[in-house]
């Protein structure tokens, strides 16, 4: 389990506009081992998706630029790879699924052809082998009657089925890492649960490492082993999933957990973290969360806390100094 597949060191992805620079991801480090699921949680604009796209090297340059850091995939730095080498890795060794299953499939081709194309491209299979493998993949993602579905077009499938097809496409080449960028956001709750269950099952079967990006703490609790809480381009807390939910440390994490509605107990007014997420370039000194923190002290204003190790977790808050 402890075989590290992906290690991100001090990743800094900045966006450069005409008159300002926006540090969308500012010094994020984490690692994912074989078979592990890392959940990345945060509000909109916290840099979750930019982190994922930086790993895939899919950000448009300019305006985006990875100014510092390393992305070590099996000890090779992805940032030093050529575009051709990256193309070979994408979809083959690192795959990604998005939140829009309704439009992520090409409407004019059968799903069988779409799954096969990746296999033909990356694994050099011939048409027949690829179709055979596609049927196998569809069976794996639990689509009923795969021999029939393989010939159907995306519009003949429901949203949940399309997401299953996307997962089948992403996993067809047996990638070592699957990046799931809010894979269940566009689906209704029952289908969400099914898709998450499916991802978990496939992960156990195939040993794929998963990077699950979401703003839904429920999803995190369901699938993750470790969790990184991101805010404003920074990781604020990094710990295993049980510690995070049972014993959250950072005021932001505590706030997030409080804002989840509870099914049991008396209904109270839902907690909200006051204020809004600042632009990543607004806060130049001190703690990133200082504008919204209820336990702010003087030191928070001026000096940014380092990661403080508390048991199994890392927390970026002066409270624990």
């Amino acid at each position: 389990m402890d075989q590290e597949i992906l290690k991100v060191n001090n990743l800094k992805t900045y966006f450069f506009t005409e008159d300002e620079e926006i540090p969308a991801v500012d010094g994020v480090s984490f690692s994912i081992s074989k078979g592990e699921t890392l959940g990345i949680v945060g509000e909109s604009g916290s840099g979750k998706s930019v982190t994922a796209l930086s790993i895939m090297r899919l950000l448009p340059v300019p305006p985006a630029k990875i100014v510092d850091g390393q992305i070590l995939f099996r000890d090779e730095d992805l940032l030093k790879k050529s575009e051709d080498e990256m193309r070979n890795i994408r979809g083959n060794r690192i795959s990604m699924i998005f939140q829009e299953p309704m439009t992520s499939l090409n409407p004019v081709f059968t799903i069988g052809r779409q799954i096969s194309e990746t296999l033909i491209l990356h694994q050099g299979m011939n048409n027949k082998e690829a179709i055979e493998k596609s049927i196998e993949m569809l069976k794996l993602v639990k689509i009923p009657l795969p021999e029939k579905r393989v010939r159907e077009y995306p519009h003949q499938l429901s949203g949940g089925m399309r997401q299953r097809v996307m997962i089948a496409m992403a996993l067809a080449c047996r990638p070592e890492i699957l990046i799931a960028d809010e894979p269940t956001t566009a689906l209704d709750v029952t289908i969400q649960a099914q898709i998450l269950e499916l991802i978990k099952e496939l992960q156990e079967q195939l040993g794929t490492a998963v990077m699950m990006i979401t703003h839904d703490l429920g999803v995190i609790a369901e699938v993750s082993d470790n969790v990184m809480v991101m805010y404003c381009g920074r990781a604020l807390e990094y710990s295993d999933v049980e510690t995070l939910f049972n014993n959250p440390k950072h005021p932001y994490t505590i706030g997030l957990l409080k804002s989840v509605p509870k099914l049991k107990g008396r209904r109270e007014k839902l907690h909200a973290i006051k204020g809004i997420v600042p632009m990543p370039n607004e806060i130049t000194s001190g703690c990133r969360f200082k504008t919204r923190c209820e336990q702010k002290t003087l030191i928070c204003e001026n000096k940014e806390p380092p990661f403080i190790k508390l048991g199994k977790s890392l927390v970026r808050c002066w409270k624990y100094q």
Partner: protein
Amino acid sequence: MTNIRVIKMGEKEITKAIEENQKDSFQDFVRRLFKNKAALAGFTIIMILIIVAIFAPLIAPYEYDAQNLKFFLRPPSKEHLLGTDEFGRDVFSRIVYGSRISLQIGFIAVGISLLIGTILGALAGYYGGVIDYVITGITDIALSFPTILLAIAFVAALGPSLVNVMIAVALVSWCGYCRLVRAEFLSLREQEFVEAAVVLGMDDKRIIFNHILPNSAAPIIVMTTLEFPKAIIVESTLSFLGIGVQPPTPSWGSILSSGKFFLYEAPWISIVPGFMIMIVVMGFNLFGDALRDVLDPRLKE
């Protein structure tokens, strides 16, 4: 990777499934296409035209340049189905041979302009930026000339001949495709499935030609079927003006033109080729429209 159940299908079954799939979808396509009566009519007209063009020497009772000055400007009769022209040539035979010119112009000129327009439009739409700017500029300049005038200019520069007419027609009609394809690419390249293709590690060439282009096939096909008759008309116009296909090679435009002096004495010389141009243009339009309806998977019932 231990407990994945691999389904083993026999090779035969797979091959059968693939073949059945292809057969099914083709039959389905044909069935849906010809459920539309207009498509059937259009297709019939096009097929008749193609057959006539291929078997022209067998169908035409006379050679297209066989003169018989004794029988000039004869009205339709048993010997000459559509009468004769001022040199006593059989008008029916000339029209039959003329279909060859129309088809050649249609296929080759449209093919060339389709190729130029699609490639330039795809590059402009997909890459944007400077490439888009330059290509759009060239298109706008080309479009600012009246079509016929530009075609006349090309032919005047190159000299009148069948090949040069084709080149001229192609060079005046690629702009439409270019604009259409560019617009299609502009909207399609932002679609998630293109992003998904990038994520799956596909290169630009594959994304442009295998993923985006098939998605813009429907409007391109409609445009092609509309350009096809236009090309025939431009050719007829050039021939009518005397700078197209040179006599004695018959083209519907030149037959029509030669008949205009005898409109009162021998109206059949001009009426029939004009009517042929109209019918063929209509046939392509009907067929193209129906084709669009069928090719769009979203309109499948």
